[in-house]
């Protein structure tokens, strides 16, 4: 249908012509309009406290204590149960968050500006590995780290980023793909490339050598530091492609540990949801699939722009880490995703595929027609609150999201069976 092809061409033009730049790091309350007290943004499509999974509840209890809204975790849970908090998706506020994806007033957020379109997107700073709030952690160690991010690293990063005048991200992604990153479960190269740019600016803007050393140490020891940058970048790239009448291109994929949700350009901001699936992957010593929580996080926004599992061919080393078969099978993931996307991205190419660009622009028609659903590389959280990450794997987006979207999309265009 010509109307759809024209609309999709426009969606791809907007997706591919974005110019995402890391421009600042500021408290969420300053950056995100409408974010107030007792207001908690979370990953995935909308969900009530009653339907939330263990890790998401654990993170909410922890953040309520961190923000001073609850005296302890038990009080946080009781207040949540009593309706004292307002829960909304990050996506409704131009933001994203990994795993539980909690965003509240005082957390510092990375600010990405898409200079081609003028929109901004936000994501909190990556907390590192181990027991962390994004995996449902909420003890004193987790809250102390959040306080250090709020009081020390966040302001230091803000000063450094402003000192650089902004850090263009597309070139970092392009180099990272050539260095073995797929920007979801492997961010070793991009984290290092970003630190090379940030380190001199951090040094120039720091007044305390010990604080500077701790900031550099924290970033340098966190292989996933860039993940949150890549997520906010992807959100900044996809948002201008929202709301194009007649476009069947997916503009968001996310999960909250209970439901998986997608948005499609031509159907506006409607969520199409289905029960989220369990990741298939490898578990850390001492854990099994019985410990795992169903998939969660806004991080599938990186797959929405062609990274993560869609760029698996660039990152054969990650295939073994997430238990997705032999490294030689990495290209098969990228080729399969090429079956359901509109085109490849000429700016983000994969050397192992002779310079083929990452597959970009998921078309719901192609997903339903071929039966191939998007693959997503993901971390696996323990199902109980407060434990943290127990593994990593690959999860499939549920097909019912795409069939529902197709039916609504067709009805909007006046197409019926």
């Amino acid at each position, binding site marked *: *249908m*010509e109307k*759809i*092809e024209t609309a999709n061409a426009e969606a791809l033009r907007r997706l591919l012509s974005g110019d995402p730049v890391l421009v600042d790091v500021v408290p969420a309350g300053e950056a995100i309009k409408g974010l107030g007290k007792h207001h908690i943004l979370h990953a995935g499509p909308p969900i009530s406290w009653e339907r939330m999974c263990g890790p998401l509840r654990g993170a909410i209890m922890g953040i309520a204590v961190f923000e001073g809204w609850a005296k302890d975790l038990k009080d946080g849970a009781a207040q949540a149960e009593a309706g004292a908090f307002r829960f909304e998706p990050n996506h409704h506020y131009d933001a994203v968050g990994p795993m539980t994806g909690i965003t509240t007033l005082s957390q510092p957020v990375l600010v990405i500006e898409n200079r081609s379109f003028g929109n901004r997107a936000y994501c909190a700073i990556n907390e590192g590995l181990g027991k962390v709030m994004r995996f449902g952690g909420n003890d004193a160690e987790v809250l102390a780290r959040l306080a250090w991010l709020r009081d020390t690293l966040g302001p230091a990063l803000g000063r450094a980023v402003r000192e650089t005048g902004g850090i263009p991200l597309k070139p970092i992604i392009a180099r990272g793909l050539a260095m073995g990153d797929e920007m979801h479960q492997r961010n070793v190269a991009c984290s290092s490339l970003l630190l090379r740019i940030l380190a001199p600016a951090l040094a120039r803007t720091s007044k305390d050598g010990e604080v500077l050393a701790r900031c550099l140490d924290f970033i340098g020891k966190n292989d996933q530091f860039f993940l949150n940058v890549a997520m906010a970048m992807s959100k900044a790239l996809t948002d201008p492609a929202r709301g194009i009448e007649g476009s*069947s291109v997916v503009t968001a994929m996310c999960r909250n540990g209970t439901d998986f949700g997608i948005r499609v350009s031509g159907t506006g901001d409607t969520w199409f949801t289905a029960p989220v699936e369990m990741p298939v992957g490898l578990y850390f010593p001492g854990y099994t699939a019985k410990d795992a929580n169903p998939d969660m996080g806004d991080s599938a926004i990186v797959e929405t722009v062609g990274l993560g599992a869609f760029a698996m061919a660039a990152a054969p080393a990650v295939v073994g880490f997430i238990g997705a078969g032999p490294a030689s099978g990495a290209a098969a993931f990228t080729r399969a995703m090429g079956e359901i996307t509109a085109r490849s991205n000429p700016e983000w190419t994969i050397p192992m595929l002779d310079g083929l660009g990452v597959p970009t622009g998921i*078309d719901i*028609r*192609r997903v*339903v*027609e*071929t*039966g191939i659903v998007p693959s997503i590389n993901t971390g696996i959280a323990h199902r109980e609150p407060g434990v943290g990450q127990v593994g990593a794997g690959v999860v499939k987006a549920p097909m019912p999201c795409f*069939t529902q979207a*197709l*039916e609504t*999309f*067709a009805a909007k*265009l006046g*197409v019926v*069976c």
Partner: protein
Amino acid sequence: MATEDNMAASKRATSLLDGPPRVINVGLERFADDLAAHGTTVQHVRWVPPAGGDARLADLLSKLGS
């Protein structure tokens, strides 16, 4: 003229029987795997019915130009 065409087609068809089988397998990959395991040259084509065989969705897709 028609006779010459028929003869050419017949010759091409016969040539398929002259050498070892060369197979294009469409759909179920297991058939291709079994042939390959017996040393047969086989090219597998991944194919499934549109929309997993759901006639209503397939109809919708055809109207949407997929």
